[in-house]
């Protein structure tokens, strides 16, 4: 949690670059140049990222309610408690479910959009911008639109109006967890918000695929469409796909706003960050347990990322050739 609060503070530090020395010295010392350019950024990173992380680890070993300067050492008790806490463990299940839905759907949708936009002969810039625009919308604002106008439970909600044409009863999308329609609301909101950004990444990658490959394939008798896509486009996009999936996973781990805003006073549908928010910053103000949960979550993200890199060969890139 600490990172979100420190981010606002990070702003002024970046601007405070040390005064540049005379030109001669600039050219002269490589070491000086290195520190000149990376120093301010590293300082910001240290003060606003690494120290809070360290502090959080420190807090996780202490009984810290209503304070961030605790004195009562409890060792690994909080870790044991968090690992036995049904709500926290349940939130990891919720996250897994969420990631299992949102990562493939966003990947497929943004790739599909990129392929469509890439084939356009005219108005390409227009459609590219239109699909990218939702990225600029905040998750909170989108959640409110989804909750209050598209997926509200009354007869004039957009979704219920459309269903009403087919004689379907009004559905309480968010209040009633059975069937769990709330997943539809959450997933569609996130799809709308993030697909455009990843579409741009895919579009760039598509335009990087050499035309010669397609020409050669055509000469060899490959059919347009699925065959070309399956054997040329998709393999050529492998590096981008891997990166997109990694970024999507990280984004899914950070999911907070839409869950927090759409699901009030529930005991379900809480990903880890929401659960930790309620522990550390809700009525409990329990920074010790909250930090322990955050450290567990961090370790988990590290393990998953390394594992994914191992499987998909991410990051081996240039060096391996």
């Amino acid at each position, binding site marked *: 949690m600490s990172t979100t609060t420190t981010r606002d503070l990070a702003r002024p530090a970046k601007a405070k670059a040390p005064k540049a020395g005379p030109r001669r010295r600039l050219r002269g010392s490589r070491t000086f140049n290195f520190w000149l350019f990376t120093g301010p950024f590293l300082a910001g990173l240290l003060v606003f990222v690494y120290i809070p992380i360290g502090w959080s680890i420190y807090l996780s070993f202490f009984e810290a309610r*209503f304070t961030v300067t605790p004195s009562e050492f409890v060792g690994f008790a909080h870790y044991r408690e968090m690992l036995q806490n049904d709500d926290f463990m349940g939130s990891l299940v919720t996250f897994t479910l969420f990631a299992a839905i949102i990562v493939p759907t966003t990947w497929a949708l943004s790739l599909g959009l990129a392929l469509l936009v890439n084939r356009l002969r005219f108005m390409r810039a227009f459609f590219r911008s239109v699909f990218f625009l939702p990225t600029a919308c905040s998750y909170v604002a989108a959640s409110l639109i989804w909750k209050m106008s598209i997926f509200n439970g009354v007869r004039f909600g957009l979704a219920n109006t459309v269903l009403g044409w087919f004689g379907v009863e009004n559905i309480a999308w968010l209040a009633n967890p059975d069937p769990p329609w709330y997943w539809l609301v959450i997933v569609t909101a996130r799809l709308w918000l993030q697909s455009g950004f990843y579409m741009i*990444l895919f579009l760039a990658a598509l335009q990087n695929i050499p035309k010669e490959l397609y020409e050669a394939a055509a000469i060899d008798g490959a059919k347009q469409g699925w065959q070309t896509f399956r054997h040329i486009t998709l393999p050529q996009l492998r590096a981008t796909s891997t990166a997109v999936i990694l970024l999507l996973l990280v984004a899914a781990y950070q999911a907070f706003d839409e869950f927090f805003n759409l699901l009030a006073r*529930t005991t379900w549908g809480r990903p880890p960050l929401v659960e930790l928010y309620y522990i550390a*910053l809700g009525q409990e103000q329990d920074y010790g347990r909250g930090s322990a949960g955050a450290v567990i979550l961090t370790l988990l993200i590290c393990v998953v990322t390394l594992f994914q890199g191992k499987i998909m060969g991410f990051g081996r890139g240039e060096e391996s050739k």
Partner: protein
Amino acid sequence: MSALSNNNWDRRTVLRAALGLTAAGTLAACGSNTGRGGGSGNGLVQYFHAYGEAGTEQAIKRYAKAYKKANVTTQWITGSNFESKLFAALLTDQAPDLFEFHPQYQLIESGQVADLTDIVAPVKDDFNQADIASHTVDGKIYGVRMIDDPQFFFYRKSMLEKAGVQPPTTLEELVEAAAKLTTSKVKGVFLGNDLHAVIQPMIYAAGADTLNDKNEIAYHTDGVVEGLKQMRKLFTSGDLLLDAPADFWDPSALNQGLCAIQWCGMWAMPQFQQALGDDLGIMPFPKVGDAGKPAVYNGGWSMFVNAKSKNVDAAKEYVKWLWIDQKEYQEDWALSYGFHIPPRTSIAQSAEKLKSGLPAEGVKLFNEFGHFDRIGWTQAMITATEDVFANSVRKDGDPEAALDACDKKVNAELKKLFG
């Protein structure tokens, strides 16, 4: 092959992209209001949750402006989680010097709120004694009540007549009435989108209480279990309005004809009357089971002074000036926007607006069936009972099991607070 593949995503590129996203997030977070307007040394900051009635924010700011001894800045906190925003702010240097909230013991136990006995005691007899009792611990008074807000049902008389339904007197009858009142366009009953507003009323209506006088659990009774089962029946019947655009505290569900009966508060009565005229009745939460009796929840808001603020004395002085001395403003606050019952007996007695018609009926419900908050019933316990409703009313969980889980949390909290 490798020469042709577009291997343009190495570690660095991804890192750059990730940093770019982070930077975008940081920029988006810029420009938030820090809450320290002006930055003058002896200024006071007060927190209010966003009242729904037009003119309330201007009124609070107008009172503050009329105070000459200090510059009082108002933070008008929107959104549905005022308590978590308040609790988080109280831990920081940006904490408000004074704030409105409900009397809750953990704030006193942790030394968060200042003792206000010296400013309240001289006029103690002019307050509703239930309000004094709910703010008193060991003879010390910790907050000044501004308004009392009874919550009860509002209903459309015409809709009940048309469906041949009498105002229900038991929860069972309410479930039946909801079924009869539901048409293709109108739902029978609205209890708010997450039902949290009717938890305490239902406990009271089942003849139980949140805690007893010895600060022990009093909500875990057969009557409450029975009530939870009937609430589950109502929730799944399809006769309950769910996911309405506005929550229970807003009059629009009933006013827009989305439902026939709505749980709301006295504060919205002027808006109901304006929209519906005489086609409006009120009733308490009907009794649950044979041992129950009808119930009204007497909520409300009080001013507290942050004991950890640097300006405790100045804040106390302001609270005394506005909420003890300035009766004109107190009356304006209670009656000019929504309807609230003034906790000061002298003001309540002279309040013409509450003396006839529906408002008078509301006052009657408040006096006859009203239950005030218990100071030992804290936010963590409230959240625990919200989980009971989530698990056994909105989800198909066993009410007994949900109450057992709740007992564990409440007992842990009670032990922490009272030993």
